[in-house]
């Protein structure tokens, strides 16, 4: 009965994956909508019985958690690094995928740069041999990035993505200033 009301983690994650890129409140609405029962016409005794019978229900749920170690959801991070499973909606660092010929889809339109609230992205464009404006350097300052996904949503060419890397600790800002494109000035 409880499984009906609260979908398990796996179902919630597959649903979220099917929904595509997460929007606020779009993820697993069942989790946020409690079943509301209209009690205005319920008799007093029924209300009392409902209250009394709900106490053992709640106690039974917690007791089942106490005796089922398999239901523990905690993940012990440094120990489980090898087989860490992240939800598909988890947003890590911004990357720029390159195809097999080393080409990317970026046209240096700077929409992502304008969408970024923190000034994380700087696009330095250059001119190609044919006189066309092309991407020179895609500078991404990870130290300023809040991983908010706005640049990904702004990109009309699907040129940038977010991967699931999250271990960024460094002793200075310098190693966190990344250039996402591999080659300069080609299209």
């Amino acid at each position, binding site marked *: 009965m409880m499984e009906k009301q609260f979908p398990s983690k796996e179902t919630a994650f597959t649903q979220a994956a099917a929904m595509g890129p997460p929007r606020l409140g779009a993820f697993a609405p069942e989790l946020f909508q409690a079943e509301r029962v209209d009690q205005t016409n319920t008799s007093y005794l029924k209300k009392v019985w409902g209250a009394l019978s709900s106490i053992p229900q*709640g106690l039974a749920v*917690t*007791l089942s*958690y*106490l005796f089922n170690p398999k239901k523990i*959801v*905690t993940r012990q991070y440094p120990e489980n690094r090898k087989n860490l499973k992240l939800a598909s909606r988890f947003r890590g660092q911004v990357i720029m995928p390159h195809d097999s010929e080393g080409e990317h889809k970026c046209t240096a339109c700077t929409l992502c740069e304008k969408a970024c609230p923190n000034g994380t992205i700087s696009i330095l464009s250059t001119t190609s041999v044919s006189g066309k404006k092309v991407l020179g350097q895609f500078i991404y300052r990870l130290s300023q990035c809040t991983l908010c996904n706005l640049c990904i949503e702004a990109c009309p060419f699907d040129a940038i993505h977010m991967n699931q890397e999250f271990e960024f600790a460094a002793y200075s800002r310098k190693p966190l200033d990344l250039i996402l494109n591999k080659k300069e000035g080609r299209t």
Partner: protein
Amino acid sequence: MQSTHLEQIQLEKTHPLGEFLRANIPEPFATLFNLIVAAVCIVALVSFSVLFLVWLERKICARFQARIGPNRVGPFGLLQTVADGIKLFLKEGLRPRGSDAFAYYLAPLLPLISVFLSMSVLPFDHNLQISDPQAGVLFLAAVSGLGVFGILLAGWSSNNKYSLLGGMRAAAQILSYEISLTLIFLFIVVLSGTASLREVVFSQAGTILDWWIFKIPLVGLLAFLLFLISSTAELNRGPFDMAEAESELTGGYHTEYTGIRFALFFLAEYAHLLIASLVGATFFLGGFLAPAFGIPGLEFIDRALAQIPGFLWLMLKAFVLIVIYMWFRWSLPRLRVDQLLDLEWKFLLPMTLLTLALGTSFLGLGWILP
């Protein structure tokens, strides 16, 4: 045979250790020495069990919520409480500006006084009790209410609205539920015909069915449930933890307390939990008596169980009750203040009076288990 053995134990009211001291040390010093030994034992018992209980609460609460709980400091996280205690000892003790210094420093001590006074009358084993006054139950009811002074003073002297609200709520709650609790104490006194805690335990001698929870059919169980509810409220624990209610009062009456003084409140809270469970075990579950089943042909089980010291039996029963309290706390949502007082005055109080009337009439009519 069982009963004569018990009567013999009942006559020997002193512990062999106390006798040995009295025989070897001249009189005024022997009593003083005995008292010091008793005080040290109680302080050790309270501090060690609180260390364990805080760990147990965190661990069990975590498991109830499908988490793991403390598991880094020591085996199974057992030393977590010690680490937290050391941290609290090293913290700076602050006093808010405009607070009443005398009351502010006095308040954390009062709940502890209540703890140690209650401990001094509880029977831990057949011959292990510091003092056995004739009106032990009355004494217990009186001193267990002392803790509320500490909470009120803390709330009032902190010069903070959250503290004041928390203290006032706690006082209203404890004073209300004290009535039900005392009526249940009265129920036990009426049943066992004595107000001495030691005699209350011995009145439950025999098999499991002679414990007061089972002896009066159903009424005993009802009284036990009422005891659980009203003592949970008396302890300011969830679902009745209005005094702390961290979502609305940040920390309740101990919002402004830091370091060692906060630790004292915390210590008293868990020591009160231990005392409530010990009292529940003493009144309803046969106290330090070993459970006997009295099944013909299987008496050897009863004899084997009786070999385990009574102190361990009492602690085991109290442990079961503590787990039940924790189960309530981490399963049920918190009540509102008006719901809380409604529950006491409109439901629990009539129910305890009814239980008292039912219990006495069952006893008068002889409707008790043989």
